[in-house]
Every structure is written in structure tokens, then in C-alpha cells.
């Protein structure tokens, strides 16, 4: 199967008829139903094709509804999977699953949440990427032109810790109802860690987070690229203790994410990358409104959070997409 170009380089589970039939028991959808038109080749993809790739990825049947919904999300015009593949930037679909289904199918939102070791987390994102490769034709070196890529492109999927958070969830923030099962797809890089082990006040931690976020993807880019912030439980505790809700946090953080354009103009600091002179004298926000997605997840101990840089945002690039998971 590797020789045929059907895999992502790692061994896959052979998709025998029996295994695919068993996989299909995980959804109430008809195997012949259309799920999405998959970029880049814009191919009609059926539930059965998704199930075949889900078997190969190592999914269990109960994972299939999440895979189907995630695929729908990344195949929207808004998400722009074609562009996410074709860009030389090193992004891929980052899938955040929210709602009770995460517990029901055994997803991890705790220790090593952005890493390996959990079957659902590891295989759902992998299945989506295998469909994009096998059905859509989006293979590395072909339409996928990433200069560097990242290991999350094997599949990057994790659960949001809603129960452990005093805040409304990312899913609710994006318009879903409480307790709704959703997938949010974000075009993102690999995560990098922000360490702050000394801040004991919400204000101090917020300033520290802002310092790191200002450098997300490029310190010389403002508003054009989104980011995802994965706030860990021990960092969230600062906000719980201070009584800050999500909106207070967003407002305070935004205040520290204003950039003096003069400091990032072309030539400033003897750096040739930067904004054109037209922006001289302006104060600009690092992120567009709604351009920072904040998720609560991670192990109970450790004063670290993670930043996942995005790609070109908006109608000219990729919009994050949230979809309700249906059986």
C-alpha cells in the first residue's frame, strides 16, 4: 500500500471489506452518501471512502462521525484546503473536538494533549489527512508544497477540556450551543510552548502570553495571520483565581497586542522584512477581531501553554470552521 502511494509513510491497517463494514457501523449515514468534495482534485467523496481511509488510519467505528464532520469542515470554501496544501507555509488542519462526545470516544484533553498516545486523537486527524491524500490527491511533493511541514500533518486532533474550564468553550465562542458536539478546523503550524512559571497574577500572565503571541509566525505580520492559544489548566487557574472570564481575558490581552507599526516597518531594526511605509505612525492589533482562538486543554500540572500559529486568514486564505458532529 505504501508503494501505491496510499499511506502517509507509516504502516496502515489493511482496509478489508469486513473492517470497512465494521467501521460503517459507527455512523447512521448511508455508505453511498456524499460527504464532501475533496480538494485539491475536487473529488466527490462518499461515506464508504472515508470509512476505508479511517480503517487505514487505525480509527474505531465510534470515531467515524468525528472524521466525517472534520472532513466536511476542511473541505469548505472557507477553510480552503487547496490553499492549505499548496502553500509553502508549514500548516495543516488542526482539529479541536468539543462536547460530550470527546469523553464518549475516549479522546484526550489532558496530559500530552497535543502529543501522541491516545488512539482517537492520533487516528481521527490521520484519517482526514489520508482522505485528502487518497481521494483529493493532496500528497506532499505534489500539490502539498510545504517548505518544512510539521509532524502534526500526520494528523493533528485533540479534545477541548470544557468541564475543567471556568470559561465558555471555544465551540460556544464560535456560536455552538452548550453541550453541542463540534469539530473546529484551524489551519495551523506545529505548537510551540510558552513557559511562564512565575506569574501569579492574571495581569502578569496575560502580558507574558502577549509577548509570545506577538512573535507568532512572524513578528512583522499583523492582522493577516490568526493563531490558536492552548491554555493549560495551571495557567487557566490564574484567571479562575482572578475571576476573569473569557471576554475579560480577550480584552486585556488585546490591549497588550497592539503593535507600534514603526517598529515593524521595512528596514526597522535593520530588517528588510516588514510593513510598507504607508503604515508609519499607526498602532495596529496583532490579530484581527476573532483571530485568536483560545482553547483550554493540557495536563493538570505544568505552567506552560502552547501557541499554534496559523496561515493567511480571511477570504484570501483560510477561515477557521466549526461544525456540529452528527451521528
Amino acid at each position, binding site marked *: 500500500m505504501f508503494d501505491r502511494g496510499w499511506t502517509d509513510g507509516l504502516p496502515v491497517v489493511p482496509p478489508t471489506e469486513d473492517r470497512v463494514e465494521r467501521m460503517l457501523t459507527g455512523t447512521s449515514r448511508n455508505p453511498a452518501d456524499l460527504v464532501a468534495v475533496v480538494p485539491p482534485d475536487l473529488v466527490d467523496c462518499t461515506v464508504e471512502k472515508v470509512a476505508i481511509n479511517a480503517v487505514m488510519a487505525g480509527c474505531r467505528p465510534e470515531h467515524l462521525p468525528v472524521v466525517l464532520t472534520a472532513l466536511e469542515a476542511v473541505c469548505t470554501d472557507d477553510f480552503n484546503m487547496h490553499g492549505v496544501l499548496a502553500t509553502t507555509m508549514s500548516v495543516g488542519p488542526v482539529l479541536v473536538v468539543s462536547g460530550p462526545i470527546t469523553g464518549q470516544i475516549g479522546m484526550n484533553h489532558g496530559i500530552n494533549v497535543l502529543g501522541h498516545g491516545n488512539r482517537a486523537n492520533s487516528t481521527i486527524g490521520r484519517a482526514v489527512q489520508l482522505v485528502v491524500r487518497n481521494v483529493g490527491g493532496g500528497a506532499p511533493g505534489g500539490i502539498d508544497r510545504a517548505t518544512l511541514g510539521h509532524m502534526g500533518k500526520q494528523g493533528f486532533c485533540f479534545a477541548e477540556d470544557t468541564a475543567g474550564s471556568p470559561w465558555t468553550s471555544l465551540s460556544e465562542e464560535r456560536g455552538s450551543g452548550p453541550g453541542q458536539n463540534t469539530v473546529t478546523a484551524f489551519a495551523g503550524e506545529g505548537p510551540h510552548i510558552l513557559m511562564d512559571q512565575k506569574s501569579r497574577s492574571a495581569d502578569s500572565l496575560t502580558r507574558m502570553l502577549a509577548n509570545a503571541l506577538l512573535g507568532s509566525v512572524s513578528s512583522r505580520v499583523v492582522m493577516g495571520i490568526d493563531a490558536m492559544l492552548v491554555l493549560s489548566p495551571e495557567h487557566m487557574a490564574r484567571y479562575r483565581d482572578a475571576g476573569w472570564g473569557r471576554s475579560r481575558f480577550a480584552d486585556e490581552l488585546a490591549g497588550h497586542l497592539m503593535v507600534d507599526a514603526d517598529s515593524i516597518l521595512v528596514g526597522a531594526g535593520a530588517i528588510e522584512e516588514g510593513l510598507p511605509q504607508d503604515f508609519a505612525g499607526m498602532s495596529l492589533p496583532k490579530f484581527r477581531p476573532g483571530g485568536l482562538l483560545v482553547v483550554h486543554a493540557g495536563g493538570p500540572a505544568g505552567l506552560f501553554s502552547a501557541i499554534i500559529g496559523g496561515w493567511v486568514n480571511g477570504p*484570501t486564505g483560510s477561515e477557521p470552521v466549526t461544525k456540529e458532529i452528527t451521528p
Partner: protein
Amino acid sequence: MTDTSLTGQTGLTVLDPTAEGRAAERELTDRAETLDGLTIGLLDISKPRGNVFLDRLEEHLVRIGAGVERYAKPTFTKPAPVDLRHEIATTCDAVIEALAD
């Protein structure tokens, strides 16, 4: 579709995970012997400094007698819209697309 070709090697019959389609094959249009008198489309994909490259190309093309039409994709992140592709195909004899950065 069932794929039995692996059966002999592995004892397994697997289902095909691909689109099971084949890319359409088209004949290349005839290559121009000369650019003199032809209309050449220059398509900027809208990345920074694509215009620098295309401006130089336009100078060269005009110098050797070609006509030039300039086009730009609305965004480099998405394929060129069908209408734009149609306009280029019906207006130009050849097209040069500029990547940049």
C-alpha cells in the same frame, strides 16, 4: 472497488481508498516558433514582488515584438477563478504565471 492485486502477496483483499479516477490527458497545444506578434498573458498570482518579475518580463517581451496583457489572481491562496482562466485562454496565445517572494 475491491482491489485483489495485493491478495497474492498478503492473503488480503482490500478496498481502494482512492478516488479511483484517472487524470484527464490532454494534448499540449502547438508550441509557438516565435513570440513576435503573439499576445502573451502575464499572470501575477498576487504574492509580494510578483510585479517586479513580471515588469521585467514585459520589457523583454515587448522588445522582441510580443503583445502583453497583464492579469492578477484575486489571491495567491486559491486557484485562479474560472472566468479569469477563460479570459486569458480566449485573449492570449500563451501565458506566463509568476510565483514570487
